[in-house]
């Protein structure tokens, strides 16, 4: 459980909030690069950390992320004209460059210099790994550019997608570090999903429903190890890194590509669930990409023209009670992503953690909250910048490995937990 004031602190990320200040210490994914596919393409509305913004790509290919609303009369610049190195408000022709600087006010004499006095709030927006990242904090504290491994491999080695999720970021993120639910909620997919099935690791998963856990602090966050019984007294370990504030990488399965997530607050009652898949040593196959496009693995199908999953709360997530009864799915909802999202959204927009009853196997979640609270407090009281900004903290990997019983995962799998160019993930 968390006290109400702790829950409020962790779940509120708007401007001026403690956790909002902390999120504004990081580069966060803002939108897919494919959403701004060419120079002078239509702008895209982006809501992040309870701020309404507008992303656009100007005539020179420069990315801008600026206040959505024109400084003149407050209309949305989403209706604007993206032309000649700027975004022009269609109401009275005010024009802004990619930094939010007003560069033209047609009704005022150019000589007056009036437009120089007008500037919209803006944030840097850079492309890495098919994702446009933004940093929304003080310029003086801007961290190095993001160094996540999935973003550094060749484009045909990775797949990145996002979907909207209709709940607070924290309850979505906590699902990502809760290893013990996999053997239940996702048990059907371990046998049937083309991006999961057919690995030895799945047999260990399904054969031992009471894993033992170890939680170890890392410089950037945590490693959460789940061990299950394997042959000859050995243990099958699934090791999940969590890097502050909201990055996780799921342990790989066999030769399947490895995947993971970011959970980024849209506002306090909605978040973006970012998902990535990648393989270091070879490209994703056409069949894998096709399966991801089709909503398999950790991906979903969308309501056309939106990032909202086709199975959503308005249609009860297309729950199929017959499939649930037959054991094809455990909850009746199809697909790993929506199995998670449906349950997390069912908690309500912001779950009341004063009512929960955690057990000892929830220590990964408890430790993550502890670290977030500790870092947020240190930032608020002493100005100490939080972990997870350092590129070294970001060069982490998940791993799945069978180890002798007397070997701790943190040591035995030490090399497997660090990103290494040209070396495949350690997987079973």
């Amino acid at each position, binding site marked *: 459980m968390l006290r109400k004031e702790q829950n409020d602190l962790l779940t509120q990320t708007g401007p001026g909030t403690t956790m909002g200040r902390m999120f504004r210490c990081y580069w966060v994914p803002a939108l897919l690069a494919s959403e701004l596919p060419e120079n002078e393409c239509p702008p895209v509305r982006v809501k992040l950390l309870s701020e309404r913004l507008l992303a656009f790509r100007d005539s020179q290919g420069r990315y801008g992320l600026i206040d959505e609303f024109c400084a003149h009369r407050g209309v949305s610049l989403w209706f604007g004209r993206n032309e000649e190195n700027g975004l022009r408000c269609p109401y009275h022709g005010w024009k802004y460059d990619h930094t939010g600087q007003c560069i033209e006010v047609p009704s005022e004499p150019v000589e007056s210099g009036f437009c120089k006095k007008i500037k919209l709030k803006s944030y840097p927006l850079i492309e890495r790994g098919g994702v446009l990242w933004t940093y929304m904090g003080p310029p003086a504290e801007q961290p190095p550019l993001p160094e996540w491994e999935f973003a550094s491999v060749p484009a045909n080695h990775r797949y990145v997608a996002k979907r909207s999720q209709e709940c607070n970021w924290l309850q979505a993120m906590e699902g990502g570090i809760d290893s013990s639910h996999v053997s239940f909620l996702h048990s059907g997919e371990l046998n049937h999903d083309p991006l999961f099935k057919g690995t030895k690791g799945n047999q260990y998963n399904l054969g031992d429903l009471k894993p*033992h856990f170890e939680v170890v602090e890392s410089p950037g966050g945590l490693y959460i190890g789940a061990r299950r019984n394997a042959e000859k007294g050995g243990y099958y370990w699934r090791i999940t890194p969590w890097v502050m504030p909201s990055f996780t990488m799921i342990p790989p399965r066999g030769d399947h590509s490895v995947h993971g997530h970011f959970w980024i607050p849209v506002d306090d009652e909605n978040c973006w669930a970012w998902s990535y898949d990648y393989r270091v040593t070879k490209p994703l196959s056409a069949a894998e990409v096709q399966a991801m496009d089709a909503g398999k693995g950790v991906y979903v199908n969308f309501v056309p023209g939106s990032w909202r999953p086709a199975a959503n709360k308005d*249609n009860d997530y297309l729950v199929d009670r017959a499939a649930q009864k037959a054991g094809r799915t455990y909850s009746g909802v199809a697909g790993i992503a929506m199995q998670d999202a449906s349950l997390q959204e069912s908690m309500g927009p912001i779950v009341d953690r004063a009512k929960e009853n955690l057990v*000892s*196997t929830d*220590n990964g979640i*408890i430790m993550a909250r*502890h670290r977030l609270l500790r870092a947020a407090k240190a930032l608020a009281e002493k100005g100490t910048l939080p972990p997870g900004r350092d590129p070294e903290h970001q060069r982490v990997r998940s791993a799945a490995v069978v180890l002798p019983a007397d070997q701790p995962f943190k040591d035995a799998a030490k090399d497997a937990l660090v990103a290494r160019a040209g070396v495949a993930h350690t997987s079973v």
Partner: protein
Amino acid sequence: MPSESARATTAAEARFRIDAPNSQPRCVMVVALDRPSETVVKRLAKLPWSRAGFFTASSFASTRPQSGAGFSMQGWLSDLAGRTKDLIDEVAAADLVVMVASAGEDAQAASLIGEACQLRHVMTTALVLGGSQTAGEATSAQLRPFADMLVVAASEDYIADMLTALRA
């Protein structure tokens, strides 16, 4: 007509969630396995708890012979006032046993406590506090066979947060 899920998951509907206790207090037995941990546990015991009991097994290492027979099951587990306690009775009354060890210290008392928990089907969580990675691993290795959950924490503050989260 909105679906049941759409209606039920709104913030407005959250007002109608039943506001009644959904659990009974859990009895958590917290055991310090060594002298430095005992100091930590004594500080912890001064905080307000519902059903947490605090003990020390720090005399285990001095009581237990280095090898061979002759070890007595009695006398090495005590409450923080120094009163000897019966391990089996205490474990039987607990919903969860939390063993607290300091990195680099002898944590062999975990073996007896762990076996008692297995006998009584009580979950065990082991916490290793501070110290270097090498020292922490030596201690973790002693705890691992007897802990359902093992946590290596940099700060002793974590214990209080964990016990609060578990409604101790």
